[in-house]
């Protein structure tokens, strides 16, 4: 290692001791101990860095900024964050519905969700409450679709146009009565969440147009896309969902 290479590495060295055990720096530090010119440079470099840090950390933060952050987040928080007991109650109802629901998806009763859909909402609720984990996480929806395909899980051939543009959070797979189902969660522009669920279409399911169902706090839209059935779901009203689907 020559001095130029050592300087290149030592430019990333934090002199407060936190990097002392990092083997990447060991050789460069040894070199500095052996070479007075490099040692001299390192001392100057460390002093320069410390001075810059001191100056940057002295930059004043706007007055009342902390209070503004706390107040801003408080008024922006979705209601579900400030009402944990209500969340638990909703989750309990949804879970009960998932357990007791036995209606298959193509049942034509408009106000009811099928069993796999209720299970999906239960899984989503669990993810939102941080009671379960994503199988894979990425902000790029295409990466999650690729992950699902690589793991032989259901995945739409093409994501809906308005959804494809959103930032994704992660995906999860589960099984309902032996049928594999996949969920991808997305971040909406308004800060809320929206979830896309896929499973293999049952024979006889032919609806290509979205079928909207409002069930409790959940709005859902379900349609067939090729060999898949897709369900879009969010905690909110049907009109919010329509703007995402249409």
């Amino acid at each position, binding site marked *: 290692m020559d001095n130029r290479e050592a300087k290149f590495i030592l430019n990333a060295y934090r002199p407060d001791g936190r990097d002392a055990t990092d083997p990447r720096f060991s050789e460069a530090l040894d070199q500095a101990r052996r070479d007075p010119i490099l040692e001299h440079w390192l001392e100057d470099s460390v002093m320069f860095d410390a001075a*810059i840090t001191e*100056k940057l950390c002295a*930059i004043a*933060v706007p007055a009342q*900024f902390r209070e503004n952050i*706390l107040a801003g987040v408080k008024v*922006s928080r979705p209601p579900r964050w400030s009402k944990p007991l209500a969340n638990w109650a909703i989750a309990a109802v949804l879970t009960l519905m998932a357990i007791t629901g036995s209606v298959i998806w193509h049942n034509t009763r408009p106000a009811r969700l099928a069993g796999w859909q209720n299970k999906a909402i239960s899984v989503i609720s669990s993810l939102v409450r941080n009671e379960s984990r994503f199988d894979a996480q990425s902000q790029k929806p295409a990466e999650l679709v690729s992950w699902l395909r690589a793991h032989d899980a259901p995945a739409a051939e093409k994501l809906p146009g308005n959804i494809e543009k959103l930032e994704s*959070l992660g995906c999860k797979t589960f099984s309902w009565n032996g049928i594999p189902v996949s969920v991808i969660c997305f971040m909406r522009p308004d800060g809320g969440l929206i979830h896309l669920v896929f499973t293999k279409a049952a024979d006889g399911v032919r609806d290509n147009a979205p079928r909207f169902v409002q069930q409790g706090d959940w709005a859902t839209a379900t349609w067939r896309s090729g060999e898949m059935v897709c369900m879009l779901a969010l905690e909110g009203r049907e009109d919010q969902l329509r703007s995402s689907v249409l």
Partner: protein
Amino acid sequence: MSEADFEQLVDRQYAALFRFALSLSRSEADAADLTQQTFFLWASKGDQLRDRSKAKSWLFTTLYREFLGRHRHEVRFPKVELDEVREEEMSIWPNINALDSAMVLQTLNEVEEPFRATLTLFYLKQFSYHEIAEILDIPIGTVMSRLSRGKAMLRQRLLSREEALGNKIVSFQSEKKGESHG
């Protein structure tokens, strides 16, 4: 996360986040807005973070991505190439004590992205090169390269500012013992 935990997180990170945002956006209003938005996003989906020890990293990563999302069209490859940072100038050190915080920030703001973000994360003493790589989503070698080139650019600009102010330039060979760089 309880409100008390959230307040603690804000207390620990808001000043450093604001300073990072300020170095990126070069505007106090934009920096405040970016910081506020970052904490809002934490309140919206931060609970999905499995490892709470990574909250600090998450906040800085989110703020950086928010900045990129808003200013993507402004982020260009740097105009200054390494060749312009001449080797002889690398051995000259500016006297930082002659400059106040605002001047140092102003000079840092003259360093082009993506070097500026890397430098700020390093100088705020928050992050190792590993963490910077993770936040900016770049390889470790790129972090080191940006630090090396970014520091050289910063020093060049600080020296120019000093010269403009008529301050003494302290050379590598003549300074040392008894003369402080700050």
